[in-house]
């Protein structure tokens, strides 16, 4: 969706991070959802991509 198409739509926002930003959008009746984001516990991105690579995906 191009920027100019966005200008014609109702804004629908996914919020990740500060909850106050989500609350403020909600208070303005903006269609929004808050992601319950947590840093991965000791996540190591490299390993996951290794798995992907070995399987040729």
């Amino acid at each position, binding site marked *: 969706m191009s920027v100019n198409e966005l200008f014609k739509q109702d804004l629908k926002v996914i919020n990740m991070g500060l909850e106050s930003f989500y609350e403020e959008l909600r208070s303005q009746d903006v269609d929004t959802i808050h992601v319950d984001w*947590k840093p991965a*516990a*000791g*996540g190591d991105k*490299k*390993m*996951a991509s290794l*798995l*992907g690579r070995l399987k040729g*995906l």
Partner: protein
Amino acid sequence: MVGSFDRTIHAVQMSQDLHDLLLHHENIVFRVHSIFRGSVNLLSPAEELVTIARTDVDMMPMGMTVDLPAHIAWPFEVDDSVVYNGQLEFVIPKNENRIRLRHARVWRPILSAPSGEIACASEEALSMIKKTLLELDSGGVSSVIRFIDGDTRESSCTSIYARFITGDICSFIDAVEAKDWERSLYQAELLVGFGPGLTPSCDDFLAAFILSLHYMNQWNHQDDQALLSFLQSIVELARSRTTIVSYSMLRHASAGKASDSYLKILEALATHNLPELRRAIDRVLEFGATSGADFLFGIWCVQTIISRWARQEECVLQKEDLI
């Protein structure tokens, strides 16, 4: 609301041992072993237990977390088959639901040696754990700590299981402290599989011993074969004497593997990080409830023993200096 589910589930994190298992297989047919609100256990033909959990549940060895929303039920039932297809997907043949793994981060179910000096648990840390346990009223065996703390009234142990096992737990602790591994193993046999729950209380208690002693040995480069074979023997006992879930937990513990919140306790103790320990204790109790309290009780016992050993060694060294 328990809704239905008709789309692909994505794995968020997976443990490295599960990652490695899948890496070496093109096809594994699992059977759904047990289902809980927060997690599901699958059993492989080789009796390997794999846990799939929602993201609000602790990461476990041989486990993964998936983004299945809390209000949507698991898309399978006990005894259904779930197939790993070698294409980074688990497929549920019954309804063609899929769990995609390719975006999952890999989590290590073991601790690396902390940088800097590795010391045993400090007194403040141990007393933080003790205080927490004294205030709890769990249904497992952790209330035995009141007895050990000097409250010898029978009512001090709040559960019937705890009352029954107090003597055996105390004998086990004495044997371990004396490093009498033969007697320790005999006493362990009187604990494995005892207590309420899918992982009976005493198994959580023993997991704390196995994990702590495993890392003590590893981090201090002791290579104490007698100790290691004692730990291995407990696992062997567990194979027939407790539930398969509990057996898996003990087997993982003997390789230094445990759930994220259990590992965080050990890490906080080894690095003397009291605020982190506080958080880790709360997490263990939140995730594990009864099991968590029993594990913490085990940690308190075994870490107290380890620090006593360290003090004795210091005394011996000082005497040698004098001579």
